[in-house]
């Protein structure tokens, strides 16, 4: 089930209403049932995969915590990680491996006049990637590793099943930490009117980002990547900038909808984005982009590989390996591997540069000047954009074609549709509306901050606590203004979105991971 579908528009209010009406003991069961319904809506059979992996990891978690001997614990941990990764490899990388073998044999055959110059004839297997497998496998691995390190396992199977299947973050993250999630299950389920309305606003904002901005940028990107040889320099940069924002609005929009949905249920999910394109270094970019993944890679790949504890060369190797595997996690294609490698090398260079600055105060002063910072931002942005070329291109020749357009001064051919697609699209209009919404939300926050206790509307749902209204002529001024503003803006966004979602609805980009 997609977040931007009519089905979800019906599903979410029904689940939220039911959740707040049922007794406390039933709430986790209801959420698990809803989450499995959500997951199995597209492919029923993969519900069994999720259930099976949940059960297996639950048992393995208990086993890891049970044994005192380190080698036994390690053995179970390794078995658990192997189980999770093998499921991921089976569904995600089987055809990639077979294609690579085929292509390698064909290449070798041509190069060495081999009989296998047309490949070994292996055809793809009919495997459909289960939605969200990359995300919940990472959550399971994090769970087992943390237990191995000493955290307490989740004893209640229902709580663990809810952690694994929680629908707002099930398919495309954010990648949760079970300690943070489990803590929320101990608290009394409640949500204030403000939290509820801000959850609604987050959902509306996320839908706007995805539908009005992300989806309308897709034709610009498609026009460029389908025919890179037609693009000129301007079109090349316009195309990749459009993709940078398409993927940002798509993914952050999805996260907003997920976080907003969780808020309506009284849960809090970690933030995943923090204005990534204002980063002044690649390192900072990864502290702002897909934060739940970068912290996972740091804690469960980079640090176990040795982190920065060894020599510098080893640290660089660890960085590159981590990012290379992170790239592979994104997709079963050599372009994703190249993208990961690109960022790994970039981070290594970033680290070396930072070390250089530590030993050169004058250079450090220059870098921290206004001009230096501006240059740093520009270089980071260009680097990230170049990385996105590798990410988006389906093949290496396609990526090369886009790079040629970007870095070879030339004018577009007459049939190039990139500029036409952008300037004729609703994106400029959507950006204006987005600024209005963001500006309005900022004003609301300002009022909220200044209004103090008079606007305190901490009542528990269901229903408003009418006792909080003053016995004066000015009853209406006591209204929970920030909450009402959130609801008003959400309604405005919903209405405006009716007109924005005219074109082809694009699937969420991160669904393919």
């Amino acid at each position, binding site marked *: 089930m997609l977040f931007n579908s009519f089905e979800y528009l019906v599903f979410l209010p029904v689940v939220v209403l039911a959740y707040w009406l049922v007794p406390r003991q039933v709430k986790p069961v209801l959420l698990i049932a809803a989450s499995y319904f959500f997951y199995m809506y597209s492919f029923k059979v993969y519900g069994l995969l999720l259930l099976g992996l949940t059960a297996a990891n639950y048992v393995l978690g208990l086993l890891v915590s049970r044994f005192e001997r380190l080698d036994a614990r390690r053995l179970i941990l390794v078995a658990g990680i192997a189980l999770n990764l093998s499921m991921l490899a089976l569904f995600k990388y089987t055809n990639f491996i077979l294609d690579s073998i085929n292509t390698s044999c064909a290449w070798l055959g041509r190069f060495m006049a081999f009989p296998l110059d047309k490949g070994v004839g292996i055809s793809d297997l009919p495997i459909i990637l289960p939605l969200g497998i990359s995300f919940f496998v990472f959550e399971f691995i994090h769970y087992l590793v943390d237990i191995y390190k000493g955290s307490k396992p989740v004893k209640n199977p229902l709580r663990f099943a809810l952690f694994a299947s929680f629908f707002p973050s099930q398919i495309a993250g954010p990648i949760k930490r079970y300690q943070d999630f489990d803590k929320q299950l101990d608290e009394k389920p409640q949500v204030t009117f403000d939290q509820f309305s801000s959850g609604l606003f987050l959902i509306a904002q996320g839908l706007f980002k995805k539908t009005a901005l992300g989806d309308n940028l897709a034709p610009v990107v498609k026009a460029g990547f389908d025919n890179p040889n037609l693009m000129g320099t301007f079109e090349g940069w316009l195309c990749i900038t459009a993709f940078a924002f398409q993927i940002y609005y798509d993914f952050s929009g999805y996260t907003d909808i997920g976080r907003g949905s969780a808020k309506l249920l009284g849960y809090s999910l970690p933030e995943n984005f923090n204005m990534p394109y204002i980063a002044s270094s690649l390192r900072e970019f990864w502290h702002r982009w897909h934060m739940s993944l970068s912290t996972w890679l740091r804690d469960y790949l980079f640090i176990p590989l040795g982190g920065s504890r060894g020599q510098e060369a080893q640290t660089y190797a660890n960085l590159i390996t981590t990012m290379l595997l992170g790239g592979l996690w994104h997709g079963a294609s050599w372009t994703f591997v190249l993208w990961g490698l690109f960022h790994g090398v970039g981070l290594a260079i970033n680290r070396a540069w930072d070390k250089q600055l530590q030993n050169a105060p004058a250079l450090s002063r220059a870098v921290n000047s206004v001009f230096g910072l501006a240059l740093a931002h520009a270089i980071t942005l260009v680097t990230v954009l170049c990385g996105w070329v590798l990410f988006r291109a389906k093949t290496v020749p396609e990526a090369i074609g886009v790079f040629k357009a970007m870095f070879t001064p030339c004018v577009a051919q007459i049939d190039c549709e990139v500029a036409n697609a952008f300037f004729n699209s609703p994106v400029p209009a959507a950006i204006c509306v987005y600024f209005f919404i963001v500006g309005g939300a900022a004003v609301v926050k300002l009022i909220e901050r200044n209004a103090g206790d008079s606007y305190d509307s901490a009542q528990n749902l269901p229903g408003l606590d009418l006792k909080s209204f003053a016995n004066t002529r000015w009853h209406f001024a006591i209204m929970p203004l920030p909450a009402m503003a959130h609801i008003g803006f959400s309604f*405005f966004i919903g209405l405006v979105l009716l*007109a924005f979602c005219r074109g082809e609805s694009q699937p969420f980009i991160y669904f393919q991971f």
Partner: protein
Amino acid sequence: MSPTTIFDPEVIHTIPSQQRLGRKNALQQPRNASQKILAGLLVGSSVVLLFGVMLVLSEIALGLIGLGDDEYIKVDPVLGITHLENKWVDFRHEGFSRAKISSQGLRDVEHQIAKPEGVTRIAFIGDSKTQALQVNIEDTFVRLVEKELNSQAASQKKKFETINFGMSSYGLVQYFVSFLSQVRPYSPDVTVVVYHIFDSTENLPKFGTTSLPAPTLSLNNKDELTIDYNFLDCWLHTDGAKYMIASEWLRRNCHLFQALSADDFMLRSGSKWYMNIVSKLFAPFSGGFQNAMDNVPLAKFGDYERRRRAICEETRTLDRQVSHDNIWTWTVKPRLGDKNASGADGKEDFKLLHDAASADVNLAGRVVRMLNLACRKSGSKLVLVTLPAPDNMVFYFKEIKALKKLAEKEGITVIDANAQFPSLAPMQSSPLYYRSHFSPAGHRKMANIIIEGLKPVLNQ
């Protein structure tokens, strides 16, 4: 402290926290029932007011940014459907464009009906590929032809003007009726019919059809052809058509209504949940809707019966004056091994399709002859442009061959764009198309092909 000061943010900051706490506790003292009701009413009315303000705000926002202008069709009792005149249309289902339908209801710039002195006028009649909602007006092949012809003829002081009469879903019968009712008053020197797959299949209603938003042909037992309005009349009396008539003002002027209608259409075909939920929700109101639709008058269309009669009479007259010879004179054999939908041998099914196609094309030949005669009588030369199609459209390619043979005999120029476009497999993508309609690149290619093809006609 007066009650009003608690609402002053400045004052709030200066109130000691204990006092604020005390006030908060005072505020939370239980109130009596009437105060609760009053507070509840105030909350309710504030919410309604808020939603009303947001409705107005979003309508203004959509108007300012130029979105939500999805509707472009109105009901027409002679042609079935035509454009909403003077209407901005924002089209993003395939490609993207924003343009205004002219005051004459054409997807084109404004044109005078009376032909200016010294101007050679070229009328283009066709379906959605000619209408070209997918690109801006200036990027359509119709406008590009005009620009290029004027540019080439600048030194000779000749002037050309093209007019786009294209309308989505039109078929050959509508092209013919459109010429008689819409195009002829403009006195075109050349009439270009942009011909496409299935243009001939819509001539006669298929078995089981009860209503159609278009005029059709009918053959009586004396093999006399005329225009049949029965199916269109049935359609005009359907709830759908009447709803379109009744909601015309909203569809012209309210962006939110247009956006909602377009979303409703999209969801009805894309979401089973939506269909089930909406049909159940509206079931209690369907009786009222039915009654409301029964009261929609068709008299607002004026004296359309007279216009229809004139068209039918002229059709009969023209048909008597043209040859009724068949233009499809082959038998196409099925490919070996072709299977039907249930996996059985497809020979019988193919024969049925073949016979239907040949009958349609033979009838199309008569209509083309009538159109040619009507053009000649009004001083216009008929040109047929056959559009490109995927390479599995076997019957269409035979149809083009048949039309070319007919054209040779009748002195009609045929511009075979299908032969000049790169061949495409079904569903294969190309930079010349978006999905099934031309991209700006495709329009440029079409314009070049048409200009080359028109040269002998314009030089005569």
